């Protein structure tokens, strides 16, 4: 089982990297982009076969190290 953890700056926290990408897209004449947020994706290969347990464990990892919850939100997807 794999866990895909997506981490983004919280809504309302200015994302300087997303803003720079947005400016670049504008400069390249790509129209219709309202906002850009940049985040990171961490893929964990797990030994667990129990989805519920795995989710709990990955949540703990996200809270303790993968994300800084002062400024970041995360989502966990198990595949």
């Amino acid at each position, binding site marked *: 089982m794999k866990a895909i953890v997506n981490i983004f*700056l919280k809504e309302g*926290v*200015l994302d*300087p*990297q997303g803003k*720079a990408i947005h400016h670049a897209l504008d400069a390249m004449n790509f129209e219709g982009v309202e906002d850009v947020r940049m985040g990171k994706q961490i893929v964990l290969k797990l030994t667990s076969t129990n989805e519920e347990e795995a989710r709990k464990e990955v949540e703990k990892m996200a809270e303790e*190290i*993968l994300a*800084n919850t*002062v*400024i970041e939100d995360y989502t966990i997807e198990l595949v």
Partner: protein
Amino acid sequence: MKNVAVLQFPGTNCDLDTKYAFEKLGCNTTVIWHKETELPEGTDLVVVPGGFSYGDYLRSGAIAKFSPIMETVIAYANNGGKVLGICNGFQILTEVGLLPGALKRNIGLHFISKFQTLKVVNNSNEFLQKCNKDEVLNIPIAHADGNYYIDEDGYKKLEANEQILVRYCDEHGEPIVVNGSVTSIAGICNSTKNVFGLMPHPERALEDILGSTDGVKMLEGLIA
């Protein structure tokens, strides 16, 4: 003679400058490897110096937070011990929760390395006790992730409790945008005023030959 412990993580690069600085100011200074679990007996001040601990992987300061010595430093701080975090050290202290808020990528995305004027916002703490309120200091900055963020409630607490130490400013003391920090904050302390963090490098401003000696009165406050 005061005893200063300077922490060293893999990737720290200001440890020896910081050691030199405190020795120059007359302290007995020891560099402590991050795998250690104890501070030297009689430590009067712990300094978490600048650099790129663990290559800034994941987030600046994120991985250093799990180094064995940090647990000891947290206990030391919670017991009233004085801790100063400079640059990456400031990032580490926010990651471990000894200081509120977080440091994000600079607003212009560039690594900024230059002398920067700073305004002393509050001197009702040991660190800045030798500086005057509203005094303008000239201290180098060198960082990519110095964009200080704190939510509105947190900011109100910082302000009410005089926890804002310095702000980036122009030569007249007017706040300016350097890296996108909330209200141009460059340094803060905790509510009990024994843990201090700032992005600028006072240890790099101790001698005329380096371009400024304003760092002396900052660091001297902590070892008075």
